[in-house]
């Protein structure tokens, strides 16, 4: 369909006042050429809450370890089951509602999850790393990438000075979109290979439309650190589904941590926005991240992409209204209707998981051997990864409502089967 056509016409003539090269990382300099985009970009520091998203500013008393005077809500308090799910893992110490891009560097630096020593790998998605990787790799970002991953976080952070910036998504000369993240370049190639497309080179083969999603998918994805080189890797060899990711981790025998209460070898899922989106009807309809999160806005006689990246529910007329000719209230009601139904099922799944954790712990305390617990552990690992996958996904089900509910249904099943396994009666379906 041609809901996109009219957007193609929005290309702008670029009047440059300063020179910007492939080595200019400071967005303020790019901003002199594109003041509108820069002003909007700076607005990602705003904190506004929606029913299920956005972020709420919570005052914070600055301390020596954490000088932030404003943080976002702790999800460990709003969703108490999370502490149990992650027992023994850094996430059970500190996990907050995510907020705008302006905070990515500081929030990462001051999260209590830094109390455990973290690798440089973390920085890949929390800073403008393109020029840093180029320097370290003497022009080859792949080499720089390996070096960055291998160093400790506190050393890596000295090589960067901005959160995600213009240069991470744009070609300095043409302003065309481009992907700068090695982990995504490799990950998407693996995913395409699983669909039978060999040697996929995203910067050469992706359409402009696809790039409007891929620049975001550089970071809004599930990931893990591969081997002792801590190489940032996206588990997409078996496709972009939760099942494919789980299968992948089993194949490579990866575990994120050992559960403190049950002793099970666990996996943590993080923000698979791109993967969930890919399973939804909007993706099938060619609707991109930028369409909803960076909608066009009229500035004088021109249309520009709103670089104030945020919840579309704070901007429904521009975001949804382009395609859905309905009132704002109606559109918000539809999204929240989906989210509310989703949240209710998430509660059921988390309660089931906590039940399983209680039971394994009880059996363990009663002296059950690891061999006896093995089957229940496998169910906990699976149930936990599945519910975590949709809970860590930040649209509260909106990006792919049916798939999210499907995943929760399976998670519930695994948790209960785990409890059954402990009761030594094997149901026929297994």
């Amino acid at each position: 369909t041609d809901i996109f056509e009219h957007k193609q016409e929005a290309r702008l003539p670029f009047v440059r006042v300063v020179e910007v090269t492939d080595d200019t990382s400071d967005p303020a300099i790019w901003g002199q050429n594109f003041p509108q985009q820069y002003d909007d970009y700076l607005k990602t520091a705003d904190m506004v809450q929606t029913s299920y998203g956005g972020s709420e500013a919570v005052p914070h008393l600055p301390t020596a370890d954490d000088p932030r005077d404003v943080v976002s809500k702790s999800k460990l308090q709003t969703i108490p089951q999370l502490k149990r799910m992650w027992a023994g893992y850094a996430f059970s110490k500190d996990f907050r509602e995510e907020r705008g891009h302006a905070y990515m560097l500081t929030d990462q630096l001051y999260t209590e999850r830094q109390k455990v020593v973290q690798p440089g790998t973390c920085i890949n998605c929390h800073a403008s790393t393109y020029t840093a990787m180029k320097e370290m790799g003497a022009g080859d970002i792949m080499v720089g990438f390996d070096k960055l991953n291998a160093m400790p976080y506190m050393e890596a952070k000295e090589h960067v000075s901005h959160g995600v910036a213009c240069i991470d998504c744009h070609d300095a000369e043409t302003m065309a979109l481009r992907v700068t993240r090695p982990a995504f370049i490799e990950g998407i190639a693996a995913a395409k290979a699983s669909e039978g497309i060999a040697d996929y080179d995203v910067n050469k083969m992706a359409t402009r439309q696809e790039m409007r999603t891929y620049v975001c998918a550089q970071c809004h994805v599930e990931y893990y650190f591969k081997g002792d080189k801590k190489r940032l890797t996206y588990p997409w060899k078996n496709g972009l589904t939760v099942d494919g990711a789980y299968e992948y981790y089993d194949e490579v025998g990866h575990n994120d941590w050992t559960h403190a209460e049950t002793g099970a070898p666990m996996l943590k899922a993080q923000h698979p926005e791109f993967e969930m989106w890919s399973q939804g009807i909007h993706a099938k309809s060619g609707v991109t991240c930028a369409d909803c999160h960076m909608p066009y806005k009229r500035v004088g006689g021109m249309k520009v992409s709103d670089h104030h990246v945020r919840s579309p529910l704070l901007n429904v007329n521009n975001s949804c209204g382009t395609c859905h000719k309905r009132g704002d209230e109606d559109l918000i009601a539809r999204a929240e209707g989906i989210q509310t139904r989703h949240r209710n099922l998430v509660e059921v799944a988390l309660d089931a998981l906590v039940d399983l954790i209680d039971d394994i712990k009880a059996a363990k305390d009663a002296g059950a051997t690891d061999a006896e617990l093995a089957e229940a552990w496998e169910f906990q690992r699976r149930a936990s990864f599945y519910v975590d996958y949709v809970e860590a996904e930040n649209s509260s089900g909106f990006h792919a409502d049916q798939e999210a509910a499907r995943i929760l249904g399976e998670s519930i099943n695994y948790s209960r089967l785990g409890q059954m396994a402990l009761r030594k009666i094997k149901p026929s379906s297994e």
Partner: protein
Amino acid sequence: MPRVLLTRHGRIITGIGLLYVLVAVLIGAATGLGLFTFGYADGAAYLTNDPAACANCHVMREQFDAWVKSSHGKFATCNDCHAPHNFLGKYYCKSRNGFFHSLAFTTGNFPDQIQMHEYNQGVVEENCRRCHSQLTHEIDPLPGPNGKVESNSCIRCHSTVGHDS
């Protein structure tokens, strides 16, 4: 029997009442904003039938460009769909829209994604039938329950015929 219509601000104004206001404005009884706006923002475009006149307003550009490509580009102009085809109605509608749009345009007080509101939807619906009454004769109008006559809204299914914008 004056027709009751809802403004975008939810205020109820009877058609006749509003007509007076507009006439007053248009006849230039006031040299104030109304007239200024109308002239400045070329609200007069509403008084012609030339689509290009609509497109004077860059915010109508999208629809214009899409209309040229649309299945109706060859058959129907903007006003064939967006203006009533009885004399009073036509000029009432045009001055009403001309006024509101000019005002909105001048004050910039309108959404980026413009949407058609109830009054104008009614205008369009009637125009669909004006041209397609033959074809839709059997399906429309059908008396609804309790003898009440309601038509099956055309644009519910054909919202893109004029311009897929």
